[in-house]
């Protein structure tokens, strides 16, 4: 692991041609930016889908001008059909979970910063790395292509429960070719994630520079390392599940379809499959996926908090152990998605306890963050605001987990908007705030220019209040038994809840519009932002010891040597209040207390 030789640099010189430099690049930094760009594009599409869905839920017969351009059959006269709502909902969930929440905090930031933070010049398998991005890109194209096939995309939701997902077009529009495209896209996506995870793990274990012991790695590196182990095991299960699903469509198999199913008065030509098998396979991936989205955000927020609180967290190691604990437990809790699925009711109790217990490491992480605010010297810049906002969102999303971990309460809350509120807070908004915090924090390093802090603060304030206005009322709707995945609310008991939906729609449109400020800031700063110094936040980890942006080999020919724990902030008796990891001065470590 120590002291990668200078020969490696010579062997890995920067390309000069446009294609090798910017398109099929082997440079982890370019690949990280490519992942970020893909996530940004996916987020814009996903957000647009949420807008039209929300408008439809508030005012079901409202004609959305121009919607027919997206699909003539799906939106005749610009009014969405019931099936088109479900198709857009499926695409919203899929695009957001896979191509935004997995891609941005893990693949984008991880690719760019993990090698730099451990003092490596690149990842050990640059070709695999390049392949991982382009495979993910192909996966995205296959997914989006479903919009343009005759029946449109699948309508079976991002969870794709069989046999709705496995029977074919008899089950509904989009369940033929659209469904095969969905399953193919996700299977391809899994390949990209597996290649990426292998690179992350190997980089962390084998490419650390001299002095970079495991405990000297920043919390972001730990978070990406833990996430990549989760990704390796979770995506390795989802991929075969998707392949079996494709086979049920194209090869006449019946992995997920039992016998004697009748559609349109016709007995389906399947037998011997199990519908619950899909749910077990999917959720064995699906629950760790929640943590694949949130653990990197935890790392990012911890990393940024220390630079902005000007102190080490209460304990570096306890935080790492807690993230590791969450990762291990994440495989034992997935059954809480299936309490009322027909699974053995004793299994429900068995899955309930680990689900409840996982709140302990999550609570430890929150308490470490909160206790670290105490007695700090906070610099309330935009990255700090988004990090603190993420803590607030994570707390809110976390406490609703107490309910959904219990099978007896799942009777009332399963498949209601309570679940929608829970996962949007704990997974989507928390991870998004982590992504925003990471963007404002690392943009100067990635592009060599500062983002506009005033615009960043406006973006934060409106997003913070807006996110609560959108997602908190979902819990109220769920408590009142408002079932999710309905394109319109025709039941008598749902009529009084429609005004709440309208409030949410207005909040979603406004909060979505606020994101345009972020996009403007991103694009404007990229080209016209103030040039960034090497270490604008007076931070300590290795990415701040190189230029902004870093050179092709990251450290300009000489790999750094590490002398300290990563978060030497709040140092007294020195000219500044921090000591960088590369600073050879003998200063007592304060990074860890437990």
């Amino acid at each position: 692991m120590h002291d990668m030789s200078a020969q490696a640099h010579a062997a890995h010189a920067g390309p000069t041609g446009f294609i090798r430099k910017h398109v099929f690049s082997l440079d982890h930094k370019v690949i990280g930016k490519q992942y970020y760009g893909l996530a940004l594009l996916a987020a814009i599409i996903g957000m647009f889908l949420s807008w039209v869905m929300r408008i439809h839920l508030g005012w079901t017969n409202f004609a959305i001008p121009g919607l027919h351009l997206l699909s003539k059959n799906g939106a005749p006269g610009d009014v969405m059909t019931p099936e088109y709502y479900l198709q857009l909902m499926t695409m919203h969930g899929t695009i957001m979970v896979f191509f935004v929440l997995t891609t941005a905090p893990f693949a984008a930031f991880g690719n760019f910063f993990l090698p730099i933070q451990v003092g490596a010049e690149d990842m050990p398998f640059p070709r695999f790395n390049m392949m991982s991005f382009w495979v993910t890109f192909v996966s995205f194209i296959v997914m989006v292509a479903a919009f343009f096939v005759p029946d449109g995309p699948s309508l079976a939701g991002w969870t794709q429960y069989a046999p709705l997902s496995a029977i074919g077009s008899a089950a509904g529009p989009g369940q033929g070719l659209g469904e095969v495209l969905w399953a193919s896209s996700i299977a391809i996506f899994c390949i990209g994630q597996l290649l990426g995870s292998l690179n992350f793990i190997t980089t962390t274990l084998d490419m650390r520079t001299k002095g970079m012991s495991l405990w000297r790695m920043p919390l972001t590196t730990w978070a990406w390392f833990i996430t990549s182990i989760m990704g390796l095991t979770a995506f390795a299960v989802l991929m075969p599940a998707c392949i079996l699903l494709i086979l049920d469509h194209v090869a006449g198999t019946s992995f997920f379809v039992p016998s004697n199913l009748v559609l349109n008065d016709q007995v389906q030509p399947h037998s011997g499959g199990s519908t619950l098998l899909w749910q077990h396979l999917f959720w064995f991936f699906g629950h760790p996926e929640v943590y694949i989205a949130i653990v990197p955000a935890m790392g990012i927020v911890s990393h940024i908090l220390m630079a902005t609180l000007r102190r080490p967290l209460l304990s570096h190691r306890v935080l790492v152990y807690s993230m590791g604990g969450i990762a291990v437990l994440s495989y034992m809790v997935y059954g809480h998605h299936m309490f009322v699925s027909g699974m053995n009711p004793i299994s429900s109790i068995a899955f309930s306890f680990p689900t409840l217990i996982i709140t302990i490491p999550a609570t430890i992480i929150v308490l470490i963050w909160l206790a670290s605010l105490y007695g700090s010297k906070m610099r309330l810049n935009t990255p700090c605001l988004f990090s603190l906002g993420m803590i607030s969102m994570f707390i809110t999303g976390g406490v609703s987990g107490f309910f959904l971990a219990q099978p007896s309460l799942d009777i009332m809350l399963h498949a209601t908007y309570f679940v929608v509120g829970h996962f949007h807070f704990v997974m989507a908004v928390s991870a998004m705030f982590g992504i925003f915090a990471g963007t404002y924090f690392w943009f100067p390093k990635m592009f060599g220019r500062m983002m506009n802090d005033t615009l960043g603060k406006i973006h934060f304030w409106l997003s913070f209040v807006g996110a609560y206005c959108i997602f908190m009322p979902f819990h109220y709707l769920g408590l009142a038994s408002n079932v999710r995945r309905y394109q319109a609310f025709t039941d008598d008991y749902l009529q009084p809840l429609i005004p709440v939906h309208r409030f949410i729609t207005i909040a979603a449109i406004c909060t979505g519009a606020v994101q345009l400020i972020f996009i403007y800031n991103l694009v404007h700063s990229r080209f016209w932002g103030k040039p960034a110094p090497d270490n604008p936040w007076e931070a300590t980890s290795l990415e701040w010891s190189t230029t902004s942006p870093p050179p092709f080999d990251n450290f300009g020919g000489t790999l750094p040597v590490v002398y300290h724990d990563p978060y030497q902030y709040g140092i007294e008796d020195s000219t500044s209040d921090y000591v960088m990891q590369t600073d050879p001065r003998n200063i007592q470590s304060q990074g860890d207390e437990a």
Partner: protein
Amino acid sequence: MAKLFAVTIIVIAIASAIPILRHTWWMPEDISTHGQAIDEQMSETMAEAGISFLASQILLGAFIWQYGRPRPGEKIRRFPGGAMGVVIAAFLLVGTEVLALGAFGAKAWANIYLTPPAANAIPVQVQAGQFAFYFRYPGPDGKFGPLHADQINEANENFFGLDTTHDQDSKDDIVTAELAIPVNREIHLLMHAKDVGHSFFVPQLRIHQDFVPGLDLSVHFTATKIGKYEIVCTQLCGLGHYNMKAYLEVMSQADFDDWLKKQAALQ
């Protein structure tokens, strides 16, 4: 800005809790014998989650208020108790809380799902298909006739695929589109799906169970209040999912007997 942020967090937290405390939007009235345990569990969980939520958000706000604008010359201070204190607090407070919730919740769950139906429970079969529920009563012989998937014919209203010509037990079976049950009598609901996954959810009845194609499942319950309630599907089943519903009518025993006779005459 620190103080404004702190106040915003605390105001949002308290404002979020008010509709919960006032039950502005809440579970509908319970009409089952087993629902009280669920409702109590919900209230206890809400109290514990609510306290955790408010305490954490207020602490976050308070620390931002206090330390968001550091005064020059102020030194970094360590949280009393340190990391070990935090870990112990999390294990003791949250650990105890979640284990207690888990244990009591498991009991409420077991009362519903791990108890057998009473011997005199009324059997009713329910079939879910895109996008309707149908119910079958066994008729005077007390026996359900066998199902023949290949004989299902919606146009002829043979929703279950019964062969009343050859199957003696099917001849008196009563098929309806609504679920009528007598009040204060246990019902044993035998569930199967015709095509894809569906679900049976009656919020007032505190019953929620998926239909799983290929699996015969059952639930049992006793309704305690006469009235008409909506049965909704909660498992995404296709384009008509939002509109897949039926009515549960809880009636007196006499009214139920009359209803059953009328339905038998209509078959």
